[in-house]
């Protein structure tokens, strides 16, 4: 009897959701980075602008970086007009995304509570709620007894180290299944004729004057009409090759999940002061995120004491979690900008566009930035939604300072 091939009796692998083509030698648009932002940009280039001679180059596998490592929180309750503009646009796209992609993404609008623990937190939170309302973003201030109604497992007793003095609540916020989101975008982009090229690392650029003529990759040189950099934590590696300085610092950002539990946590809870954010995924695992590790790091892992601190915060806020077992921790590489806002738009090279600096919050922006960056590439002009996030704001001083202001945990 001949030796059996292991797994030969298993069912066929399902049909792939996208083609796996050989790179062509030239494209109108080359997107560097096959994560959420790159794939969404590809989708909207095809769908909204009919541009399909496009390659998405990914050095690893599709959506294997931060897209596979985030905590999937989606919200738009940012303080400043510029931020709520892009994030609210993104949230509206999320609301129709399942239909647009024809693919289930398990988008669940279960609301987000951003807890306030000090009087200053309360003042900042109420201010943000009012700013959100003026910008058409759903937001309300809720008192501790309402927090208890929305999320009964939060410890609202007054004798804890960081008592809950109230929270902002955005009912339309929620979570989605990150892999399905990436796959949905990839499938649609591939169907439209866009080449998604994995295992293809950009190793350099060919330039002529102030234009980039192509990218050098581990799979050969590829000529490009326009280049969009969507490489998140590795942006600096690319811009260093181009000789462009970009004010981002790459940090490890860790998250973790517990074992699967019965439904206990009906919403999303974030707390800046004690530094944890928690939701319960559809399968039942508690998903918790931490703040960034303080030092620069490209290692996709962080230090254990960060997790320990984050767990201490979680158990303080949610005593019921104390006996849950931690299943898995991981880290991504987030590119943090000086004002905690993204950097999108022109570079000193006239046909190279930048999309980076989303720091700890890029997932929620996926459809929004894909949509706006596609428009930017198609019209060779930054869309008004991303125009405020230009690289030159660090020279002009027109910062969009969302540090702390936006309920962003850094």
């Amino acid at each position, binding site marked *: 009897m001949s030796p059996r091939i292991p797994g030969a009796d298993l069912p066929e692998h399902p049909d792939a959701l996208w083609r796996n083509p050989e790179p062509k030698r030239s494209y109108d648009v080359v997107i560097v980075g096959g994560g959420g932002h790159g794939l969404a940009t590809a989708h909207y280039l095809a769908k909204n602008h009919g541009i399909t001679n496009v390659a998405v180059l990914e050095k690893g596998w599709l959506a294997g970086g931060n897209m596979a490592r985030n905590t999937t929180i989606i919200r738009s309750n940012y303080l400043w007009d510029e931020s709520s503009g892009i994030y609210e646009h993104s949230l509206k796209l999320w609301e129709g995304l399942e239909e647009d992609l024809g693919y289930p993404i398990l988008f669940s609008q279960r609301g987000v509570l951003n807890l306030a623990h000090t009087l200053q937190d309360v003042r900042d939170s109420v201010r943000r709620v009012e700013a959100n309302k003026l910008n058409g973003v759903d937001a309300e201030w809720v008192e501790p007894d309402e927090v208890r109604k929305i999320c009964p497992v939060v410890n609202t007793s007054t004798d804890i180290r960081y008592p809950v003095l109230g929270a902002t609540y955005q009912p339309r916020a929620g979570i989605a299944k990150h892999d399905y989101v990436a796959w949905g975008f990839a499938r649609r982009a591939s169907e439209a004729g866009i080449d998604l090229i994995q295992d293809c690392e950009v190793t350099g650029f060919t330039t002529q004057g102030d234009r980039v003529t192509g990218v050098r990759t581990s799979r050969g040189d590829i000529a490009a009409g326009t280049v969009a950099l969507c490489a998140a934590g590795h942006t600096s590696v690319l811009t260093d090759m181009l000789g462009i300085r970009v*004010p981002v*610092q790459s940090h490890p950002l860790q998250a973790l999940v517990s074992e699967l539990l019965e439904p206990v946590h009906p919403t999303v809870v974030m707390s800046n002061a004690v530094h944890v954010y928690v939701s319960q995924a559809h399968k039942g695992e508690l998903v918790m995120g931490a703040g960034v590790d303080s030092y620069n790091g490209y*290692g996709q892992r962080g230090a254990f004491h960060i997790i320990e601190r984050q767990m201490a915060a979680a158990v303080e806020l949610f005593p019921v979690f104390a006996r849950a077992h931690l299943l898995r921790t991981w880290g991504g590489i987030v590119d943090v900008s000086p004002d905690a806002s993204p950097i999108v738009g022109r570079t000193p090279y006239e046909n190279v566009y930048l999309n980076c600096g989303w720091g700890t919050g890029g997932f929620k922006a996926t459809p929004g930035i894909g949509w706006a960056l596609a428009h930017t590439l198609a019209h060779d002009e930054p869309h008004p939604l991303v125009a405020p996030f230009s690289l030159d704001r660090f*020279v002009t001083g027109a910062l969009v300072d969302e540090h702390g202001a936006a309920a962003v945990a850094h």
Partner: protein
Amino acid sequence: MQLIACPWCGPREEVEFTYGGQAHVPYPDDPAALSDEQWAHYVFFRDNTKGRFAERWNHSAGCRRWFNAVRDTTSYRFQRVYRVDDPKPVTP
């Protein structure tokens, strides 16, 4: 937990230290002479090296003194610690 070798105190746990970002960024000799762009680069722009990176650390829960280190940002391994007034070492 990673141990960091403070040049004055010897190896101590990472939680005792505070990160200070890129080292060897001198204050401009003549700040008033800088253009907006040069000033922006001094204030906001720092190298974001993947690999060996010279950076500042403070032993904040120990001797509270600053020092510099060369650390690999992919492995997080410290390769050299040195005084802030020493030149950037050439590491192999």
